[in-house]
């Protein structure tokens, strides 16, 4: 069964005013359970609006959202339960920290779920460990930490609810390369352990190519494509035509193709690139 499914999902901002804008237009997509999905698209393509539908923060103007086969908006009193199932980490999540200590902040979500103190404690420690926060951080004020640490506390706050689906809106924006690799690495590790479904909104094609098995491309409020990472990068030329950058490796092969070399352009990892170049050299060497 699909973890998330949308049926003709549309969303219009400020309907009936001069500021009316269709942000999501007739999106039909089925996201499989246990997938690690990259969500890409231009600024303003509707990515952020789309993902806010997945845990009921926005109600669709038209269409339906199904979580595990159940309509999200069928019964409003159940909405909160769905929010615990689908964890959403916003852009710059460190700005939502508010508690006196890191521990209490991470515990906010699970406490809201009404779990026992023991269970909350277990989940907080587990989530903190998953993002590499150490014991000594737990009793500090979240405002004393560095930017990267704050970000990890905020992510832990969502992980602690053990959501079946984890959605992250540009979790690495504004971090240095090391902080970025660290967070993405931890997320992948967590995914491999828990087999949860992960949606990663990102502007960086390199990250998507490296971490995601499936890719969802939004373009001008519409779903452009949803498929395996390979399928998506097979259409690299279309994607770069939309103004999105493709990974550097892919760009090299697009350039080679343009120069008349007989190469595949659906290459997005170093290993593939090496193999392809070697076979090209072998051919040319003839």
């Amino acid at each position, binding site marked *: 069964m699909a973890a998330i499914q949308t049926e003709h999902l549309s969303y219009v901002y400020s309907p009936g005013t001069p500021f009316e804008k269709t942000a999501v237009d007739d999106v039909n997509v089925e996201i499989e359970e246990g997938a690690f999905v990259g969500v890409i698209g231009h600024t303003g393509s509707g990515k952020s609006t789309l993902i806010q539908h997945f845990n009921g923060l926005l109600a669709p103007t038209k269409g339906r959202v199904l979580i595990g086969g159940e309509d999200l908006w069928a019964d409003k009193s159940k909405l909160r339960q769905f929010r615990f199932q689908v964890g959403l980490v916003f852009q710059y999540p460190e*700005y*939502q920290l*508010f508690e006196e200590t890191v521990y209490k902040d991470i515990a*906010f979500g699970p406490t*809201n*779920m009404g779990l026992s103190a023991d269970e909350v404690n277990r989940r907080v420690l587990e989530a903190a460990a998953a993002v590499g926060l150490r014991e000594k951080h737990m009793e500090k004020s979240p405002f004393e930490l560095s930017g990267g640490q704050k970000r990890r506390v905020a992510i832990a706050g*969502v992980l602690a609810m053990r959501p079946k689906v984890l959605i992250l809106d540009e979790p690495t924006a504004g971090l240095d390369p090391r902080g970025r690799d660290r967070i993405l690495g931890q997320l992948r590790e967590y995914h491999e352990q828990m087999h949860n479904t992960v949606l990663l909104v990102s502007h960086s094609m390199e990250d998507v190519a490296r971490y995601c098995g499936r890719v969802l491309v939004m373009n001008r409020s519409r779903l452009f494509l949803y498929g395996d990472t390979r399928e998506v990068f097979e259409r690299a030329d279309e994607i770069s035509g939309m103004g999105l950058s493709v990974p550097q490796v892919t760009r090299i092969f697009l350039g080679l193709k343009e120069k008349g070399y007989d190469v595949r352009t659906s290459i997005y990892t170093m290993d593939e690139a090496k193999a392809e170049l070697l076979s090209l050299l072998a051919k040319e060497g003839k």
Partner: protein
Amino acid sequence: MLRDITIGQYFPGKSVIHRLDSRVKILLVMAYIIMLFLADNPLGLLLGILFLILGYGISRISYKLILRSLKPVVPIILFTAVLNMLFMDGRPVLRVWIITVTYEGIRMAVFMAVRIICLIAGTSLLTYTTSPIALTDAIERLLSPLKTLHVPVHELAMMMTIALRFIPTLIEETDKIMAAQKARGADFETGRLMQRAKALVPILIPLFVSAFRRADELALAMECRCYHGGEGRTRMKQLHLRYYDFVACGFMLCCIAGTILINYCAPVVF
């Protein structure tokens, strides 16, 4: 949900009213208020209403927006109307127990209600058709004579500009923080008063933190661009009076004169 707030909302347009000098517009609104309170006769008030209809018509601002700006003041209107109705001396019309409603009371209540409605609608027209920046600019210019009395006019205007500039930003920020806390299962809609008040803590703390951060950054950015107060500062957009500004002022004067004339000459119909 917070997006629906209309206080000080500006709807860009190209009508004459939009193009009027913002100083003139402020003065006109003041004159309009004086006119409303001068009117002592229903015909005078009618003139005020016609003025309003004309203004909204020319500026092509939807009349529906009047209703939206009136919504928050409905309780005040009702409250003053009831007070006026109950506590005016005069010819009694209705007597229930110790409550007496007088003819004068009803008259006063209706007059006050109409005046407040016109007042709100009139001032809303000002904010609907004038950008906040133009407004504060005009206030600064109008108050500049006070500078001789060492009133920090420029600083006050700058503070107002900044405050207005940050209203939408903070609203957006609040929306975002609320969404983020809701995603963590925060519940703002149910529970008793105390619980609801407590539920606001996860919103207010991050909001304050970010407001202070923004203030800090803004101060730094202003200093980096050598801001040092109003002394010797020139403007990018100079305010100029044009012929339509004089036409508008003339029209306003005619309306006020008309109101006074009606007060003295027209028969008392109500």
